[in-house]
């Protein structure tokens, strides 16, 4: 019994990581329809922000809390830059956006290699996150996993509130639902696009900070997480944050339970099969058909 509970907790914490790395995408991909393959490198930028910051602020606890907003800003600005320079020209060509941003991701990875070196580096975790909470003898919850779970939930709540109750959020949703109508209603859609991209990319930076707590960071860390992140948003559905949230935790739990009975690699493959099967049941793109002009 405790084994199942402890695997469930592992699943929830895997889900929390998935959710953090996918949350920004659910905004840029899910709401705006932009396929940004450099999202993984924005995560990397957030992680390296912690690394650099710890050279200045040696206290790991303080640097973590300063890093959260700072990484948000760094990754967010990178996102805005990308939107202004490239993505804006490619809104009508989503598949080409994918390839162009892949190129950007290659360049950013190499930049990271040239600046920080190719080998992975380790950041220091604050003391209060290195311990465990012991619930029973068999069930031990690690502090940093709990912290990431809290961070992920906080990010979801903050994003939901921002989208639902602020005027910016209303404008974002207006542009998503009907760009032309929003423009006619006096909303500067270009500025809303940039702001949406800032927030979505900024969330990637926050995810990067969280990833520093789980292991070493390196130039290729973005590539390792980007596919998982996209799968979460694809399965979660366009335009619905709650879809991404549910899918992230479901996949995390599935993976952790399968992992326990087989191996990590089999679990990964089964998760992929599960997503394909899921899309058989609930395919995306089916509901966005416009009939009056098929073009």
């Amino acid at each position, binding site marked *: 019994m405790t084994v199942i509970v402890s695997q469930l907790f592992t699943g929830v914490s895997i889900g929390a990581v998935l959710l953090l790395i996918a949350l920004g995408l659910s905004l840029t991909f899910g709401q705006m329809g932009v396929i940004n393959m450099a999202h993984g490198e924005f995560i990397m930028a957030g992680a390296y922000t912690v690394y650099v910051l710890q050279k200045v602020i040696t206290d790991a606890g303080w640097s973590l809390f300063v890093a959260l907003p700072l990484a948000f800003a760094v990754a967010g600005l990178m996102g805005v830059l990308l939107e202004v320079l490239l993505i804006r020209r490619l809104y009508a060509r989503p598949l080409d956006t994918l390839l162009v941003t892949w190129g950007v991701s290659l360049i950013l990875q190499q930049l990271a290699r040239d600046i920080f070196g190719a080998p992975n580096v380790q950041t220091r975790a604050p003391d209060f996150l290195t311990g465990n909470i012991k619930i029973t003898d068999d069930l031990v919850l690690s502090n940093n996993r709990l912290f990431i779970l809290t961070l992920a939930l906080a990010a979801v709540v903050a994003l939901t509130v921002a989208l639902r109750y602020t005027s910016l959020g209303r404008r974002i949703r207006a542009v998503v639902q009907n760009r032309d109508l929003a423009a006619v209603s006096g909303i500067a859609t270009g500025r809303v696009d940039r702001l949406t991209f800032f927030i979505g990319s900024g969330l990637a930076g926050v995810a990067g900070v969280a990833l520093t707590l789980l292991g070493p960071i390196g130039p290729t860390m973005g590539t390792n997480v980007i596919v998982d992140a996209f799968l979460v948003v694809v399965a979660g559905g366009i335009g619905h944050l709650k879809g991404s949230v549910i899918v992230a935790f479901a996949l995390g739990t599935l993976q952790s339970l399968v992992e326990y009975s087989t191996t990590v690699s089999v679990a990964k493959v089964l998760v992929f099969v599960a997503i394909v099967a899921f899309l058989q049941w609930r395919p995306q793109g089916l509901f966005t058909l416009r*009939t*009056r002009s*098929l073009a």
Partner: protein
Amino acid sequence: MSGLVVRDLRVVFDGFAAVDGVDLEVAPGDIRFLIGPNGAGKTTLVDAVTGLVKATGSVRFGDDELLGRPVHRIARMGVGRTFQTATVFEELTVLQNLDIAAGAGRGALTLLRRRRSVPVSVEEALETIGLAGLRDKPAGALAHGQKQWLEIGMLLVQDVKLLLLDEPVAGMSHDERDATGALLRVVSADRTVVVIEHDMDFMRSFANTVTVLHAGKVLSEGSVAQVQADPAVQQVYLGVS
């Protein structure tokens, strides 16, 4: 020739009934115009008949029930449609557009070979729609009206028996409109035709019978004169214009 029989058709989007219990009978060979204010459910009705949206009730064409079948099956049963915005394959030539439309029944071997000659039906359709001289032009380079005619031509070679046209003359010049009307006469000779149209002059010249839809329901039905004389219609629709 077969007629179209619609019984108690309902299409519901998120609790909103876009088509709310429509009964409709189009006799074989009829040219039926569907009119009504925006949001009356005209296009949604056509969407339901062609399988694009889910609907309840019954749509029979001849002896076949159409509801519940996938779009391409319905098309193979002889039901064809056009769209408000002309949708042709812009990168393909006029000839290629028609050839594809003519070929839904082709076997794998024919498909994997090159087109050696122009099928007779395609040749005839090129003449009928007046685009014979532009056959090797990419469809994307055609004028708006020509694209609409190409779409009608595609329906001809597709050998449909029921034509559903969604605003075929919207945005056309006067001459183009007349030519389209003449084209309609030609194609309707051995087909059943349903036209959605806002253009009242066009309707008066070419409609055989008219159905007025309002808020997802049939408001009135009959000849052009009957419908125009109907006080209910004048109130919700014609009176406004």
